């Protein structure tokens, strides 16, 4: 399976949100989408998911249909009086009638267990913390069994333990099932550790793309973020990024 973006361009009115973005993602590969605030990460994911009209370029998905794309937007739903289980079942919406078949219920329960949140099943979304809700929405996404996972900052409200286990699970699923996974994420160390490849967006353009140690260099970080960071090899072979100060600031 393969997802190809060819010269993807998106306009918001006159403002150019994305321009000429092109890269390929193969099955079994986790791509971390990084970049400063407003660089177009969410727009890119929405465009791939088919929720954002693009002014130019194409999204080509080989080996799967568009229905196989699963997109997890940033946190919403806090006001809905829905239980966790209902929320996850919505991922199986197409298979449900007024009655919820036992197999569908079992599948939703299984995903909840996989993410370690089975005990939350009867709780209302509004009662959960932001991090718990992120896990619930990941469960909803996984329940739909997508072939392409598009996650928009799935760990933004998670503690480090849950961040690590969520990313490990996503990587395991991606490799085990041959999924195409693109994660928009701010945490550069998490990107370096869990992604097979990193795509760096800056002002709507793809600034760099490739293996984490090729993209996450001191020079590109300075250029994209305006930050001085020390990049070094961690004992386990991954690279580690220690930002020290904003460039141009005291």
């Amino acid at each position: 399976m393969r997802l190809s973006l060819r010269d993807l361009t998106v306009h918001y009115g006159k403002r150019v949100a994305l321009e000429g973005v092109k890269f390929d993602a193969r099955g079994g590969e986790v791509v971390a989408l990084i970049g400063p605030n407003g660089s177009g990460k969410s727009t890119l994911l929405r465009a791939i998911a088919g929720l954002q009209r693009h002014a130019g370029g194409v999204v080509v998905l080989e080996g799967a249909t568009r229905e196989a794309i699963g997109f997890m937007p940033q946190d919403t739903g806090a006001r809905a009086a829905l239980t966790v289980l209902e929320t996850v079942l919505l991922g199986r919406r197409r298979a449900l009638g007024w009655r919820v078949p036992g197999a569908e219920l079992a599948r939703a329960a299984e995903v909840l267990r996989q993410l370690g949140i089975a005990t939350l099943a009867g709780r209302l979304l509004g009662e959960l913390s932001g991090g718990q809700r992120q896990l619930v929405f990941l469960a909803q996404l996984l329940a739909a069994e997508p072939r392409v996972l598009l996650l928009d900052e799935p760990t933004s409200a998670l503690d480090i333990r849950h961040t690590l286990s969520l990313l490990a699970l996503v990587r395991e699923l991606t490799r085990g099932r041959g999924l195409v996974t693109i994660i928009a994420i701010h945490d550069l160390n998490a990107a370096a550790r869990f992604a097979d490849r990193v795509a760096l967006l800056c002002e709507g353009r793809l600034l760099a793309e490739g293996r984490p140690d090729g993209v996450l260099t001191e020079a590109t970080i300075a250029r994209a973020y305006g930050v001085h960071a020390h990049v070094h090899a961690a004992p386990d072979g991954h690279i580690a990024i220690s930002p020290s100060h904003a460039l141009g600031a005291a």
Partner: protein
Amino acid sequence: MADIDATSPEAIWHRLSARRGAAIATGLAVLLVCVTLDTATGPAMLAPSVVASAVMRLAEDPMVDAIVWSIRLPVALMAVAVGAALGATGAVMQTVLNNPLASSYTVGISAGAGFGAALVIVLGAALPVPEAFAVPVSAFLFAALACSCVWLLGGPRGATAETLVLAGIALMFLFQAMLAALQFIASPEALQQVVFWLFGSLQRATWTKLAVVAGILLAMAPMIMRDAWSLTALRLGEDRAAALGIGLLGLRLRALVFVALATGAAVAFVGTIGFVGLVAPHLARMLLGEDQRWLLPGSALAGALLLSAASVASKTIMPGALIPIGIVTALVGVPFFAWLVLSTRRVLS
């Protein structure tokens, strides 16, 4: 299988479903009591047992049989049908417009119906229907027109919840202004009729009218229930619903058609009755949550209960006098609702 582990998601789900089923069953039982009381009260008070025997056509007194079957039952059942229509449409609108204040009253559909009714009463507009049906037909048409206008005004901008709400509110003011203009030029007799129509009254109910309202509602119910999961998804936000593969435009359009027809049918025969469409969904939501498979029938039930209870109250608050139902729903309903909101948090979990 559910007893293996009481805290498993499956067990929680079955308990939740059982609790909701019990809530609906309780509501139905209370509704039956309300309808019985509604049939029993009036100028000639009947004992519930007499009502029961008359309903089964076992009344020995032909007078009692006539009171129950010709006068009281159509009114009592009309309260149920109209209340159900207002409750269900209120729930659909609050979900689709993502706004807890939405109801047919607040987005101009009732105002449209009121204008349509007043148009016929004041100007005697010629419609190719029997005279008794001219006012309802016009009210129905204008309710549907108001709905279409909401769509046409809010639709081109993508038909988001915000544009539709704004279009609805603008429309409400427009129809109210036109209604005021009609009242301004109306003769005193016509004016009185218009005002009375706007109060809302169940007393004009007949079996024929009841059949029309109930028929439309029952015909529309499967259509909207098929969208139950999609409507539930909409509660998670437009982006997430779209990401789940739901066509938002089509869903909104189908919902609006349901609202137009069901509201139109409801208000056409009984006049504008506020409050029920706003409050019934909130009552149902507190008890059943927002899974629309439960919320929609629950809101219909809550609406039926509210209006049936209001119908009883309208006959008993001032013995001998019949207070217009539209006044009673608000006078009795508002304090009740305020108490409910202040005294209960979510009863769901």
